[in-house]
């Protein structure tokens, strides 16, 4: 099924092949993000 660029998301629930491809990426790619948080309520 072609991706509709006007629709958000990967639709992983109905796309086992995409889910498998994503899981492969997550298993092999780790990104460290340097951050600490201060909470603030949005305006």
């Amino acid at each position, binding site marked *: *099924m*072609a*991706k509709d*660029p*006007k629709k*958000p*998301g*990967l*639709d*992983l*629930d109905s*796309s086992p*092949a*995409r*889910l*498998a*491809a*994503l*899981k*492969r*990426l*997550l*298993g*092999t*790619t*780790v*990104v*460290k*993000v*340097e*951050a*600490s*948080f*201060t*909470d*603030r*309520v*949005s*305006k």
Partner: protein
Amino acid sequence: MSGASEKAVALLRQLDLSIYTSADRDEVLAFKCAPIGHRPAEAAQDLIYKATDRLGDFGSGYPYFVLARDNGVLVGAIIFGLEHPDDPAIQIFTLGVAVTRHREGIGTMLKKIAMALAVSDEAFPNAVASTVHRANYRMNGLNDNLGIGRNQDPLDGEFYITGATVELVNGPEIVRVTDRPPED
């Protein structure tokens, strides 16, 4: 701290982050983040516009719809969250930076914030994903610079699936926007 990190921290302190509300609608609909004729960026821009009225279409529950302003001017927007409750990663549904502010690191900063929130929010898995058109060179470059992996979408060769497991290490302060819009 490296020069690049100092620049990132300075940018972070400069930006004012808030969660989208209906009061932002007109400003968001006037927001231009796609260069003329750049179809992948236009698609991202259209999704930002769509979210002003139909944020509920973006995944399960209400996702984060975060706006970034610089001196009161909207310079960036990002929408992210879980598409389905059991997904292994949050998804960046769309991301846009004002055309006048490209190549300043604003998009990278917004994506880092989304990734950091993925780790810090217990409702989210510690991973991030997105789908990016292969011709969206700027977004692919942004992801490459962040170290996010990509594979060709097995169902549509025009797109990449991107993803990474995220680890949070102590670093520059990020202001966490804690409020979410109420569900209708």
